[in-house]
């Protein structure tokens, strides 16, 4: 979900990576990109404008953290604002113990009301409530049947009276609920356009009669710019208490989530994420925001970095990188700091872009230890000046660290490569991956090297033998 928006942010993130401080200029560029990304994500135009303004105000004049790049910092601001727009904390679905709770579902056609009705019934059932499904969609062919099937699947009774007036159905349903001892009524209504006055009036009447604890707007996550219009029309005319976002298991960028919340101010309580009746989740604004930011959890990464990285030390490191005097000793220090942040795979998966690539890569923590061992087997002088590492020194290091000569060679080669690369990009991202000589690919390369060397030795031996003959 939200994959595409994440990719967009990654691109912005990359553009910002080379910058050392937050300036008005790079904020403006970044915000322009954020704006386009959000627009392409179907976030309503006006919502986008407000959003951008908020983030920009917040970011400019902020102290620049040394441990993370300005890009990451801006991402954090964007993230915070996203969480904010989507309601901050997750909103609980609260029911009352001592009465029949009434939940009414409304929305456009095809937004997934009947499916959500089934899911919500199942959800309540699991929480120990006694739900009753009420079929008030008397227009769409077979809608009542659909609810009956869904109810059966969920193991919840369904009250239906065929195609009579919804108000009459609701009236009788209350008696039925009392009789059956049900304590939550979930009323499914027909999908309708918010500009259809007759049908909207029907809904208003139904709501006035039911006085529901929750009037749920069921909204399709794929909805475009118009999400704002229909949501605010339903809210102003009928009045909604909460929102359920459906079809979030698709690849919709989900701008509707931001728009609806921003415009109606009503909390998104549920997200519907699949075909099964159990595919219903609470809506977590923070998780959603992280997902928007690229499937990776940059925020946690930033927070972890803030916790563990000594800001001054990081500054030192940055200077060294700039002066091109990054040494094995620095690398060792950095590695220790990273280790403090937790398992490597977790950290890597928090970096946007890396997360997805890393899905099927196995990270062996022990191998990081072996890198450490190799560096620890170097003398301080060797660590500061890798260029003095001659063949015999390398052999000694290999012996001392229990690694093979190929491993040592590979590490040194990659260290030099990575150093060059880092000077180019100067970010924390990608550093560890590039420097790890024990990753599978590197190992294979090393194996190939090894084979080649063996073959050469064999050939030399053969030649010698021939000479003797």
């Amino acid at each position: 979900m939200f994959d595409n928006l994440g990719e967009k942010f990654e691109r912005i993130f990359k553009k910002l990576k080379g910058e050392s401080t937050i300036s008005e200029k790079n904020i403006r560029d970044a915000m322009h990109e954020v704006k386009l990304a959000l627009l392409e994500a179907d976030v309503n135009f006006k919502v986008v404008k407000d959003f951008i303004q908020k983030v920009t105000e917040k970011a400019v004049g902020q102290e620049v953290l040394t441990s993370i790049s300005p890009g990451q910092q801006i991402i954090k601001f964007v993230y915070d604002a996203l969480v904010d727009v989507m309601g901050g904390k997750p909103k609980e679905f609260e029911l009352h113990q001592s009465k029949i709770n009434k939940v009414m579902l409304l929305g456009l056609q095809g937004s997934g009301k009947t499916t959500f009705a089934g899911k919500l019934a199942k959800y309540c059932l699991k929480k120990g409530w006694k739900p009753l499904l009420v079929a008030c969609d008397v227009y769409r062919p077979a809608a009542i049947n659909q609810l009956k099937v869904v109810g059966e699947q969920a193991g919840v009774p369904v009250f239906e009276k065929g195609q009579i007036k919804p108000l009459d159905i609701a009236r009788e349903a209350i008696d039925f609920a009392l009789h059956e001892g049900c304590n939550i009524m979930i009323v499914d209504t027909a999908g309708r356009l918010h500009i259809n006055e007759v049908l909207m009036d029907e809904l208003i009447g139904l709501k006035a009669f039911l006085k529901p604890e929750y009037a749920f707007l069921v909204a399709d996550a794929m909805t475009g710019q118009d999400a704002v219009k229909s949501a605010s029309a339903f809210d102003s005319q009928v009045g909604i208490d909460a929102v359920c976002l459906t079809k979030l298991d698709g690849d919709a960028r989900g701008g509707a989530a931001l728009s609806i919340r921003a415009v109606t101010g009503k909390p998104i309580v549920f997200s519907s994420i699949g075909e099964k009746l159990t595919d219903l989740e609470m809506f977590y604004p923070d998780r959603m925001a992280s997902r928007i930011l690229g499937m990776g959890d940059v925020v946690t990464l930033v927070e972890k970095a803030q916790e563990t990285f000594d800001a001054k030390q990081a500054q030192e490191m940055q200077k060294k990188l700039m002066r091109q005097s990054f040494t094995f000793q620095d690398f060792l220090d950095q590695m220790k700091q990273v280790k403090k942040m937790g398992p490597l795979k977790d950290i890597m998966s928090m970096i946007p872009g890396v997360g997805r690539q890393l899905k099927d890569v196995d990270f062996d923590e022990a191998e990081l230890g072996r890198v450490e061992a190799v560096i620890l087997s170097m003398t301080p002088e060797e660590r500061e000046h890798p260029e003095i590492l001659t063949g015999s020194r390398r052999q000694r290091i290999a012996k001392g660290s229990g690694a093979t000569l190929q491993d040592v060679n590979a590490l040194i080669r990659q260290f030099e490569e990575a150093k060059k690369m880092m000077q180019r990009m100067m970010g924390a991202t990608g550093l560890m991956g590039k420097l790890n000589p024990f990753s599978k690919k590197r190992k294979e390369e090393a194996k190939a090297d090894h084979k080649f060397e063996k073959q050469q030795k064999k050939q030399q031996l053969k030649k010698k033998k021939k000479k003797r003959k």
Partner: protein
Amino acid sequence: MFFWKKKPEEETQPQPAPSVPLEPENPEKKGFFSRLKDRLSKTKDSIITRVKEVIRLRGKVSEELLDEIEEILIQADVGVDTTMKIIDRIRKESRARGIEDSEPMIDLFKEVLLEIIQKNERLLEIGAARPYVIAVVGVNGTGKTTTIGKLAKHFLEQKLSVMMVAADTFRAAAVDQLEIWSERTGAQFAKQAMGADPASVCFDALNSAKSKNVDVVLIDTAGRLHTKVNLMAELQKVFRVIKKVIPDAPHEALIVLDATTGQNAISQMKIFSEAVPITGVVMTKLDGTAKGGILIAIRDLFDVPILKIGIGEQIDDLRDFNPSEFVDALFAE
């Protein structure tokens, strides 16, 4: 765009009275153009009206004017890429032609829009093959079943025999929903139990259609999100099995897109046409709230023609798509 303010179209037969009418309420059939215009005149909010307002207000072509047009297009779901394309084109042309006044500017805008949406259009017509097989696909809730009901009515009126195939064996009561449509229209109906393999439903139905000399077969598939790899594979299987019975079928594979969808429609279009050979688009829910700018983006980015547009809940509101009439209607006073 094009806020054709009208009652809902898809899924519901939303008359306040529970008796669900099949026949259109309007006895006098209006032409496509006048009907489109009709709906447009009810709204002050369509993009074109707003663009026109902006153009008249500013009177002169300027960057600010273009910025405003850009905003309006984006708010109509035209999408950033296509919007930029339109704006660039207008900027270039207005300079090249030295346009400064509002009237020629409106003409230019019309021309640029037409340029984008006018290509390889054709009508949905029943070819020579018998049975002529039309498969309908799309994500959940776009109005596939309703579209099939309307298409069936349309073909039956042409004195063709029609069979509906309930290959949506997944969604609760989807088979019932289609069956109601078959009863209303008098089309033949082929079904199996819920949960049956949709490919096998099609296999049996097509064999039966062949032996009964049915002219048109309409296959209703289950709504599926294009990101579900296994469901897309299931769809491919359905298509493979259809070919086993009739090698050149389906003769049409229509994707139903909901006009209220935002930019995700592009993704739907892309992934569905990668999975199966889509031959045409049906865009539903263009009436009412939908801004439908996504129609322009779809036309811009894909070569697949738009065969039908849904502009209301009446059976006759599933219309042929005619680009120039469409643009004309948008600009009509």
